[in-house]
């Protein structure tokens, strides 16, 4: 069992980071109906801002994360104001919005690539001292875990309160469930839209910041992670807040533990790892588009009864 400590701890970290990333993707999809492929770039931008702020700007961990949040949020807001909002006003279909988000992603990713290439930053890691605080078997619980996991849980708790208790949170839920109805009810949809993009981009930026502490980053970091972000969000039902939190951790655990199991007991090559996320996306979309969002203990019991009864 102790052998599993290392993949378990990795899973915990990855699950937290994927949750942070996927929350924004779900929020922008629910509120603005954009399956946003450029979300990956918010992660990468946050990661780079963090690395530059800490390594060259001599900011601390908190300062670095704050600037990652700020920059990624600004970029996210700008993409919506300059592209998505205008397209939505023109009546673009979800497919056109998806295609546009791919275009936005290409522009952001490779502009960043040019800058990183010219500055010699094609691979960097944030220089923050990460100390082990406890040993479990051969695995270390580090200060990074102690930062990233509670941060994610705190974000989830705060967002829960925002959605339940505040006016803006309720307005977001209203827009997610029926845009026209929200508008005729007097909700300032422009403002809510902006707040959504700021939170979505900012959280992706913070997750990217943590990622740059966890492993070296490059301009493709977010794009590679995007597969897992989409898997998390889609597994959560693509529109559901709690579903996404669950999806993020399930995806994190299946990436880390899943491939450990498969390679150790079935001899599957570790390089097949992306298949896990790809299969999650395909299977959920084809057979259970509501994902985990509508899976309740009672519903599971009912289907079990049906299966037994048959």
């Amino acid at each position, binding site marked *: 069992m102790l052998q599993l400590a290392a993949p378990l701890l990795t899973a915990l970290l990855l699950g937290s980071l994927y949750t942070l990333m996927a929350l924004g993707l779900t929020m922008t999809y629910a509120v603005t109906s954009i399956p946003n492929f450029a979300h990956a770039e918010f992660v990468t931008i946050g990661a780079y801002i963090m690395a530059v702020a800490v390594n060259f700007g001599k900011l601390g961990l908190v300062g670095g994360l704050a600037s990652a949040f700020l920059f990624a949020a600004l970029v996210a807001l700008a993409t919506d104001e300059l*592209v998505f909002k205008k397209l939505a006003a023109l009546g673009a279909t979800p497919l056109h919005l998806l*295609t546009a988000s791919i*275009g936005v992603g290409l522009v952001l990713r490779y502009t960043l690539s040019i800058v990183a290439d010219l500055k010699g930053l094609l691979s960097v890691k944030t220089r923050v001292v990460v100390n082990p605080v406890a040993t479990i078997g051969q695995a270390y619980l580090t200060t990074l875990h102690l930062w990233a996991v509670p941060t994610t849980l705190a974000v989830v708790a705060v967002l829960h309160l925002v959605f339940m208790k505040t006016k803006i949170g309720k307005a977001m839920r209203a827009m997610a469930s029926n845009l026209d109805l929200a508008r005729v009810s007097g909700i300032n949809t422009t403002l809510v839209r902006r707040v959504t993009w700021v939170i979505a981009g900012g959280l992706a930026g913070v997750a990217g910041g943590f990622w740059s502490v966890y492993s070296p980053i490059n301009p493709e970091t977010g794009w590679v992670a995007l597969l897992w972000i989409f898997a998390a969000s889609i597994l959560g039902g693509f529109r559901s807040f709690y579903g996404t939190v669950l999806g993020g951790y399930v995806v994190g655990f299946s990436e880390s533990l899943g491939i450990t199991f498969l390679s150790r007991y079935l001899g599957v090559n570790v390089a097949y790892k992306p298949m896990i996320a790809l299969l999650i996306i395909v299977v959920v*979309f084809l057979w259970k588009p509501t994902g985990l969002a509508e899976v309740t203990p009672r519903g599971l019991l009912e289907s079990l009864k049906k299966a037994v009864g048959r």
Partner: protein
Amino acid sequence: MGVDILPLVTSIVTFYGIYLILALSFNIEYGFAGQPNFGKVFFYSIGAYVAGNFTANMLMRASGVTGVDFCSDLAAEVRFKVAMSKPWLIIALFLLSLLIAAAVGGVFGYLTSYPALRLSGDFLAIVLLAFGEIGRVFARNYTPLVCGVYGLSGVPNPLVWIGDPRMARLAYSAIVLAIAFGMYLLTERLVNSPYGRLLKSIRDDELVSSVMGKVTPRVKGSALIIGSSMAAVAGVLYAFYVQTVVADDFIPIVTFVVVTMVMLGGVANNKGTLLGAMVMTLMDRLTRASFLRILGISVGFDISYVRYIVTGLLIILILMVKPEGLISEKPLKTPAIEEAEKLS
């Protein structure tokens, strides 16, 4: 100073042919039938894998050399020698590859109709993108197919026996262009036929078509079969041109470039596709380090970045300014309409 532009011309012509076929196939699926096949690169790669694996295996068998690793440089050399000495064999293998790839591509296209009948629009696009990546991850890890990460080299140009490699490439590019143009004529014929009208009717209102008694799932499936078959043919042409098959060539961005061609040129308009494919091919070929060297330009970063940025900007601009594309959809050409036009 004598600048040799022949390789550049050859590569532009060849890639124009290949991209044109891909763009036409995407136009049939998306423009006419309304099925956004964002897994285009997967079907393209199938053609390349079939061509590479089949041709390489057959050439090894014909060489009579045994005990040589299929993926080794030595094997690649053996294959070139066989192709040099037996013109009829390599031509036959090329033609057979085209046929087999078209068939295999069609089968996978048929399988694609499973998600296409359950999903539509953005969700279908995401699932098919995932299909493409599943194919790539599989191919780069399953070495017997095309030698995994390193790829399969030594797929000879079918005209290698001409001797002069420059002439062989030039002649090959003419063949590719001819096949592409044939595909264009066929596509034009197809979409202006009753079948083309049926595709458009399903795209615009599937319910109405099914009320008229059309079996719409079967028609959608057939459009995907045709499109995937064409993409696989493009993959064969690509494999024989670059002479290596590497799984990591078939990344999602290839699909995005093809999507841009169709959206830029004009959705559901094949003349637009001709134009869009030309614009994107020129952009693709002229933003290469090898071309900039001819002009004597060097930049301090990888020039591919510029290509991707321009592609992204084109996607955004076309969707914001002219979502129907540069040449918009025109009314169908039927014999009756042509007669009416003559009279008026």
